[in-house]
Structure formats: C-alpha cells, structure tokens
C-alpha cells in the first residue's frame, strides 16, 4: 500500500482550489441571476432571498425561447451536415483510389489556412445578392462543411481495414451502402467527436451570426444575448440571467455526457 505523501495532498488541494476558482465566474453568474435588483450589490454567492423572477420575466417575453430555438436549429442542422459530408468526403479520400484524389485532399486542406474573417465580406456580399441575409440558411451556409472535420474523418477511415469493405462489396452492397452501413458504424467515436465540436462551435458562434442576421427573430442566442444586454442598460441581474440561459444548456449536457465529450475532445485533438 503506497502511503499518501504530503506533496500529493498539497498538489490535490491546490488543484481543487484552482478548479473552484475556474467555476467562480459561473457561480456568480448563477447566483446573481437569482437575485432581485435590490440584492445585486450584495456580493454574497448564496442569495439572501433567491427568486426566479428574472427568469420568469425574461422567458415570458418570448425572445429568449425564440433565440434558443434558432440556435438549436442552426447548430443541429450544421452538425448533421458536417457529420454527413465531412465523413463522406473523408471516406472517399481515404478509401478510393483515383486520379485527382491528392489534389482534392490538398485543396480542401488548404482552406484551413484561410481565416473565416477574410471570407466574411464576400459571404456577406453573396448573402445580400442571393437574399440570404437574415435567414437560417444565411447563418448556416458557411459552416455546412469544414476541412477540419474532413481531415479528422479521413484519419479515422484510414484505420479501417479494407477487408471489411471488400467483403461488403462481394456481398453486393453498393458503395454508398458500404460507407453508410459498414464504414460509418466503425468510426462512431470520431463521429461523436466531430458532432460535439461542430455543435459547440455553432452554439457559441458570434461573429458571423452578428453580421448576417438583421431581425431579432432570427438571432442566435449569443447575438440575442449581446443585444439584450445592451438594451437592459446595465441591469446586471437581468444580464446575468440572460447569460445563464445562454450558458446552462451546454453545461447540463456536459454533466450527462461528460465521458463522451472529454473522449471526443481528446480524439479530435490528437488526430486533428
């Protein structure tokens, strides 16, 4: 039995304190959202008289629910699109041998070097010419596929033995079915990693939705929150409630799926 050394205890304690400091902003945000205007300047973490009035007021006005739904729609559709197309392209580049394969791969990979900010103005121009400003499609179109996802999926598909696929081919499955029914189930960890990253990225995205959306009905949560906060003329309890509403969903999902999310992040980080 190894004895617990004092160094270990100190390290553990420091790590624990650090961890608590890390979540302090979140705790303050939550606690302030449960205070009314008269308690805001009382900086205790546990509210003296907790109240859900802020939540009731903000949620009953309907905008936050709308923004929440918008964010969900956008993040889910973009995630599905990435899971489908990135893996389809990754699979094709990993498992098919044809002339031009390498060029396609390099071309797609090269887009990683181009910052979104550079494309934003042409996208804006494109969106205004095609009437995509202020629409779900306008928010979503730039992110429907990503080079990062394609690269990630290619890495994972390369790890699948060709025999599996050959066997399916002999069984008479067509290529699409081979990909969808045989190859895809073999890379589910990678798919979940891709899905987690894409969802999180789109859920928290601010820059492009801020530019492309016009009317409050189409805001995503981050953009809505930002405009809401400005409009509240610095009523901190209201702003913190809005921030909590924007932040809590991902935190709650995390509590349930912690294992998968952490594993997904590790996978994406290592292979990516």
């Amino acid at each position: 039995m190894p004895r617990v050394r004092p160094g270990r205890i100190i390290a553990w304690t420091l790590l624990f304190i650090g961890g608590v400091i890390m979540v302090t902003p979140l705790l303050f945000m939550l606690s302030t959202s449960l205070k009314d205007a008269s308690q805001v300047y009382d900086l205790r973490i546990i509210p003296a008289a907790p109240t859900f009035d802020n939540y009731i007021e903000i949620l009953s006005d309907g905008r936050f629910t709308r923004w929440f739904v918008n964010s969900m729609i956008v993040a889910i559709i973009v995630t599905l699109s990435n899971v489908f197309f990135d893996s389809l392209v990754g699979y094709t580049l990993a498992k098919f041998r044809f002339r031009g394969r390498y060029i396609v791969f390099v071309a797609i990979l090269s887009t990683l070097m181009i910052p979104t900010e550079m494309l934003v103005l042409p996208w804006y121009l494109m969106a205004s010419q095609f009437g995509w400003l202020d629409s779900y499609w306008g928010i979503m179109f730039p992110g429907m596929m990503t080079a990062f996802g394609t690269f990630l999926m290619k890495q994972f598909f390369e790890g699948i033995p060709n025999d599996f696929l050959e066997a399916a081919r002999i069984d008479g499955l067509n290529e699409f079915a081979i990909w969808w029914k045989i190859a895809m189930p073999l890379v589910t960890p990678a798919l979940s990693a891709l899905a987690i990253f894409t969802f999180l990225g789109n859920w928290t995205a601010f820059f492009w939705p801020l530019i492309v959306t016009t009317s409050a009905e189409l805001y995503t949560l981050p953009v809505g929150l930002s405009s809401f906060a400005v409009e509240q003329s610095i009523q901190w309890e209201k702003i913190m409630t809005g921030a909590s509403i924007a932040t809590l969903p991902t935190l709650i999902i995390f509590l349930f799926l912690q294992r998968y999310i952490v594993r997904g992040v590790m996978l994406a980080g290592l292979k990516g």
Partner: protein
Amino acid sequence: MSVVAHREATTGGFWSRTSLGQKQLIWAWGFLAVPLLFYVVIRFWPTFQAFYLSVTDWTITKPAEFVGLENYKRLFADPLFWQVFRNTFVYLILGTPISLMISFIVAYYLDRVRFMHTFIRALYFLPFLTTAAAMAWVWRWFYQPVPIGVINDVLAGFGIPQQPFLRSTTQALPAVLAPAVWAGLGFQIIIFLAGLRAIPVTYYEAARIDGLSEGAILRKITLPLLKPTLVFLVVFSSIGFLRIFDQVYNINTNDPGGPLNSTKPLVLMIYQTAFSSYEMGYAAAQTVVLFLILLVISLVQLRLMRDR
C-alpha cells in the same frame, strides 16, 4: 485509370474489371460532387474575391471600383492600424504562453491525481463550454469599480487599492484577455492529459530504475514526448488569440476596443471598418493582412517546433 483498376485489369476479364474501376470512379466523384461545389463556391471563390475587394473602394452604398493598392497604403499609414497590430500581437504573446503554462501544470498534476479526478477535471473543463459573448458580460461586471465590482471588492478586503481594469490603457488588454485564457484552459488541459496518457508507462519505469529525479524525467522524457501535442496546442491557441473578437466586443460595448483603442484587435477593426463605416474595400485589405499574419505565424511556429 486508377491504381486499383490497373492492377485488377491484368488479373481478370477485361470488360467487367474495368467497369468496376470505372464504377468506383463514378462513385468517388459522385460522393465528392456536392462537397466540391461547396468548397469552390463557399471557400475558394470568396478567397479570391477577398483579394479582389481589397483593391477596390467598395462601400455598401457604392459599387466596387479598382483603386490599386490605395487601401493598403492607407492602412499602413494609419496609426490606428499599427496600434491594433500591436494589440493583436500582445494578445498572442501574453495569451499563448500563459494559457499553455497553466494548462500544462494543471494537467501534469491532475494526471497523477486519482481522488475526485473526474470532478476536478470537470471544474476546469466547464468554462470551455460557455459562450464567450455571454461570459464577457460576467467578466465585465467583475471588473467594475467599487461598490459593484467583485474583484475590486475582494481587493478592498485585502486593503489593496481599487484597480481601474477596463478603464485603464495598460490593464484593459490583460483584463479582456483573461476570460479568453480562462475559457480555453479546459480544452488545453484535456489535450495535455491525452498526450500524457499516450506516453508509455514503461518509459517512466525505466527512468525511475535509472534513478532520474522527477524534474529530470519531466525534462528528458515527458516534454520531448509531448512535442506533437505541444505543437498542436501552440498553433491552435495562437490562431485563437490572433482572432479574438467576441470578448472584446462584448466587454466594452460603449467604446468597443477602448479605452483609446488599447484593447482593439484586428478582427474588431475589420468589423468596425466594414459594418460601422461601410468601407468594405478597406476592410477587405485588413482581412488580407490578417490572413498573411496568420499564415506567417503558423509557418514560423511549425518550423520552430519541428527544428527543436
């Protein structure tokens, strides 16, 4: 056509074998058709267009006209650009080493902790899942002067004079950077943990048998073997800090990038040029400069990290 087709063509019936290869080819390009169209229209074409726009005087209200390098000349003569350029690099130079240092130390010790490991890891990871635009408001509130500012209240409790934070040209940038570092730590810690796990235990055992100290093991085994992880994190987080926007925009909505432009990064300048002043051509030139900066930084870092 393809390698497979050639190899198989020699072994079996000519027609049927070739047609399988051709079928494969059709399938492959069929799979790629929509994605390729996407990449051409949504990625490549806009890239060229950005370069083109940067040499025009396009504004929202006026069609684009070719003006040569006018935008670039104006940009390099603009003192604001150089200030913004400096700020952008300060975000990078402070942000990357600080966040990597903290996350490595946490990961290094967390890796050895068993008691409540998952819980502590979760504490560090949670901020990564937050929305930067939302958390900027929380931090904005933290930085207020007394009587409402949380940090200044704590400082006052220790008898430390109140700090201006966002109302100071020297403290504002680190104050804006802090939430970005804070939110990124969780990700970096997880990646470091994965990197540490990937180092075979036998290496450590061998080192201990050789009587190496913990410090020597860290220097001679852990760090060198972590290099791929480190390269990834350095490049990844550098790009993140060079593109900082959400926090800056939200933490000071009345004077974005202020006070006196001391926190303004390049992306915010681009946003303001394009969407407050409508000078799209000028903004496009700024995006090209951002692209070049990112390109050079990534290449230099990859080079440096590989050589060492």
